[in-house]
């Protein structure tokens, strides 16, 4: 006989395993309703291990860390509201979300792509090092915070709507495109402290940016021709993914936010 022992916490919410069905094209469909994230992620890992290349996950309500522990080039379609820290340290997968994403999407993300047919919460793309994030709508506070780049590994974040305060704080690399599509003509973005502490990377903002709403470390200029091409490519892909009119979007000028110095705090200290 076996003595049962209830471990506090870890397995407290172990629920039924998610039901898996298969589409005619062989694609696996996992019903995540009522499944704890640990079981769900384990299930996705097992599916990938057995060769699944495309998985639909339906009825997602807040399960965390989706895509984190699958270092493979697979495609996940998420239907519902994925939980915090989706794609944390993700390396490989392509995730498409039909719904809004919560906080911490793309935290320390490394490689792969996340497409959100909706909005996303706070601290999007924190410390992101590679891959790309596409958000149709708006994003919350501190998005793009401390993104990094090295060599040709340059993360890209494209946001269709607008953002809240501390956008691109501490930015240490990478490219961000903020389209401001929800804004009325002539309306400026509302965020304060944009790019505060920025010391590398670039943010392209469609529409006007008031110098009073950017950090003191940030310079404002027009993108050059090469950068405009990068923006155009991003917009083209955005339109492919979410719809819209490329020419119309490109008709409004972009502002480039850039760091005035690689070393914003070089003079802060007495040696």
């Amino acid at each position, binding site marked *: 006989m076996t003595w049962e022992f209830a471990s506090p*916490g870890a397995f*407290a*919410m172990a629920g039924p395993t998610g039901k898996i069905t298969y589409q005619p094209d062989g694609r696996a469909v996992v019903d995540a309703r009522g499944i704890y994230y640990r079981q769900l992620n384990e299930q996705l890992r097992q599916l990938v291990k057995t060769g699944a290349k495309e998985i639909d996950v339906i009825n*997602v*309500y*807040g399960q*965390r860390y989706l895509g984190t522990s699958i270092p493979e080039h697979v495609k996940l379609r998420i239907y*519902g*509201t*994925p*939980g*915090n820290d989706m794609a944390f340290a993700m390396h490989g997968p392509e995730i498409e979300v039909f*719904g*809004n994403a*919560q*906080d911490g999407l793309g935290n320390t993300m490394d490689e792969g792509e996340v497409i959100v047919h909706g*909005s996303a*919460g*706070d601290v999007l793309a924190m410390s992101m090092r590679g891959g790309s994030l596409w958000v149709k709508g*708006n994003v*919350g*506070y501190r998005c793009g915070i401390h993104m990094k780049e090295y060599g040709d590994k340059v993360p890209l974040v494209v946001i269709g709507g607008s953002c*809240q*305060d*501390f956008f691109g704080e501490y930015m240490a690399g990478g490219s961000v495109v903020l389209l401001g599509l929800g804004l009325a003509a002539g309306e400026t973005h*509302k965020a304060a402290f944009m790019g505060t502490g920025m010391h590398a990377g670039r943010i392209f903002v469609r529409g006007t940016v008031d110098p*009073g709403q950017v950090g003191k470390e940030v310079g404002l200029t027009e993108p050059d021709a090469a950068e405009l091409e990068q923006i155009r490519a991003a917009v083209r892909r955005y339109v492919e993914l979410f719809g819209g009119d490329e020419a119309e979007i490109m008709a409004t000028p972009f502002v480039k936010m850039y760091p005035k110095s690689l070393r914003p705090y070089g003079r802060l200290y007495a040696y």
Partner: protein
Amino acid sequence: MWDIGKKQNPYSDDKLHDACGIFAMMSRSGRTFAGDIPITAMENMHDRGNGLGGGFAAYGIYPDWPELFAFHLMFETKEAKAETEKYLHQHFSSMDGEEIPTRPHPGITSAPILFRYFLRPNHHLLEGLSEDDFVVQRVMHINLKIDGAFVFSSGRNMGVFKAVGHTEDVGRFFKLDEYEAYCWTAHSRFPTNTTAWWGGAHPFSVLDWTVVHNGEISSYGTNRNYLEMQGYFCTMHTDTEVIAYAMDLLARRHGLPIEMVCKVMAPPLWKDIDQMAQADRDLYTTLRVIYGPLLMNGPFSIVMAHQGEMVALGDRIRLRPLVAAERDDVIYIASEEAPIRLVEPTLDRVWIPKGGEPVIVRLDDAAMAKAHPEGRQVLK
């Protein structure tokens, strides 16, 4: 006399540290909802708490006696109950007392004796006090002077239900699926330095004011000193308590509208005040200068509610999450979007409120007259 402070804060730390998940919903038109909705939402955010406390506040649940103060009490002993009932009889014309209905739940253990009383103050004892102030004093007396007795809810046509356990279990234990409320707020707790005690769970309440809170107030010491100077006893050693007292002081005693209360707790930055037009600049400068000690500094998201009104507020630089959503006449507030979607898949609007800018929900006049016939809070 028993020391609630000691019970709450057994190691005499500076204060309690806890964090959490919150959920709230309210219908502007006074439509009511059963408690299984907030229970489901809180269950979805299970991981935000650690099982050491959960609770709910529900408004409009006692429609048959809207004018009576509904006291929810926990007793550690029969003696405490007897002594409290004697005290209540002296001060109130008691209409009814009954056990709070519960159903056994494996996640909820060592429950105290739980009773509720529907009370009307003995008017000849008021001696010039308002009914509200009279009730506050009686609550303070019971909580501080009667060993083993604790009033955890004392408002009209509303109730707080809380316990040690995971929030969803607490809700089921209290059979909240059988209550109908036009406004629910709920909280799951993640305390780090208390031996969990039922009274220590959220919501925290004074009269019909309730507060649920996520975060930690770094200015606690300053806030507390100021409130103690104003005659409040911060016996619970929690951030949430100072928020509730600040709310009571500013809104009830000083008569500030709720919008201004929020601007005291989460004021604009000086750099923004300096840019304002003269009238606003004067207003916000005055508020900050006079009520500076009530600035709630540090990370917080709170939902405060009282009769017919609910307000959600995040700190100025949004260090804690808060999501708002709307469907028809109902506003939802939560730490995450997923629980809202789970209970209402079709929403008209979902947004992230700006730090320091409150989301305020009020009952319309007809619903207000029905739920709270004594009228809106009388300001002095």
